[in-house]
């Protein structure tokens, strides 16, 4: 994988992060090092090995369809960076 400025900008956008030009350069070199490090894993021959997704062999952990009261509105909104008495407030996401 090639990590160039464009890739860093795309990743920053997906993560909703903003970097200054200096930060961009240091993130880029960090990412390059991380990718190189991970590439080491590619040296192992994994042919015929199923990907490991789950660390336990549990299956069908299901619950019955019973509703329970959730949090109070006060608790729900407690950690919100911005809220009124009813809603979370976020920057406008639609511009018509």
């Amino acid at each position: 994988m090639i990590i160039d400025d464009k890739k860093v900008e795309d990743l920053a956008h997906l993560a909703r992060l903003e970097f200054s030009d200096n930060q961009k350069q240091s993130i880029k070199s960090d990412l390059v090092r991380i990718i190189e490090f991970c590439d080491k894993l590619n040296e192992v021959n994994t042919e015929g090995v199923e990907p490991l997704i789950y660390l336990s062999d549990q299956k069908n952990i299901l619950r019955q369809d019973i509703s329970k009261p959730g949090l109070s509105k006060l608790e729900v909104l407690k950690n919100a960076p911005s809220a009124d008495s009813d809603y979370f407030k976020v920057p406008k996401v639609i511009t018509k």
Partner: protein
Amino acid sequence: MLKNDKYEVVIGLEIHSQLLTQSKAFCSDKVAFGEAPNTLVSPISLGHPGTLPVHNKEAVNMAIMLGLACGCDIREYNTYDRKNYFYPDLPKGYQITQMDTPICNNGSVEIVLADGSKKEINLTRIHMEEDTGKGLHDLDIENTLMDYNRAGTALVEIVTEPDFRSGDEAYAFLSEVRKLVRYLGVCDGNMEEGSLRCDANVSIRPLGAKEFGTKVEVKNMNSMTNVKKAIEHEFERQCEMADKGEEIFSETRSFDAMKGTTFSMRSKEVANDYRFFPEPDLPPLVVSQEWIAEVKAKMPALPKELYNKFTKEMELGDYDASILTESREVAEYFLEICENTKNYKAAANWTMGAVKSWVNSNATHIENFPLSPATIAEIIASIDSGTINFSVAEQKVFPALLDSPVKKVSEIIAEQNLALMDDDDALQKLVDEVLAEFPDKVAAYKSGKRNLIGMFIGQIKKKSGGKADPKKTNQLLTKALS
């Protein structure tokens, strides 16, 4: 039907259907529409650190049932995936969905078009996922306001093959799917409230071409009519672009119901990148044959099966069968009448006539109709046996029963003295009386004015208070006048 001599429209639909579970897909928050904002929310639906989702078994049952109803293959080994994106409608930063292992594959739904022709619409897949929260964009000038009551509600997404060639076909499919989910009781099918939502992938291609054009995704159509309109608008728009030599690019557009047009929603330079990966918080779901059999056993009769039963076994016409199967409740009411009568045609007529008009004029549902199907069967039996005739049943007995639904049909007939006269002597007496009253008319009849018989019957009916059996009256009159 869309007509264009150069291009044809190709449409595939994606239908999101909210499942009618009591609690959400992965936590036990209550599912309800129209509650005060942010009151049906838990740390799991808010995506707080350290929370763990657990799948709702009923949501899986409903997905399997819908799949069975559409003739899908039900997947045995299911996993879940995270669809990652930062948007305030999902506080976790990802949506739990099934990217690689949809629980249902293939299958189809048959639609009936306006001209009566039928078409099979193939399904690609039905997968399980969770709904998002709701953003209110117009309440506050500077902010979008978020309500997470809906976040985490169990959904299934039905994805069709690009099998539609007109807005009318898409409309017919949506009505069929809505009928089906309502029959199965897995979704209330309410497009206005958003419990059934439809996105359309629309592209055009030159007539006769095999390959598909670039598709445009259209969202935010909150009624079946709007889906049809949006497709028709999009077809025209794309044809115009193609004629001008403009390139149609892949984008998401929103339908503007006021203008009947679509507008671009997302800037195209930033392509979506959802970075799907397996959801490690949810262990795999294994659907056994026994489980599928259990769901099958609980499945109600499907509209198509009932239609076939009504037309073939019960020998009703196509029109009657279509009307009776429009909703499960109406079909069930009709079937319950038929448990007590073999006169299926009469049962159909009463269901579609007097019963349905009561339902309509009271703006309610058949579940609230006060008379039991057995009572309707009793009315039918009283007519069939000749105790009362249809007009007495409809105009006197039926309204009287509505006033006192606990009474029996026979009680009403006795109380109001509605039974047709079955006493030949009494009827003969009325015939004699009338003939004695109108000697001149009798003479006229005998001299050839045969249509006067109607006048005599009318007089006798009047004297009997409407209870003279018209057939018998006619017989006795003809005899007396000969």
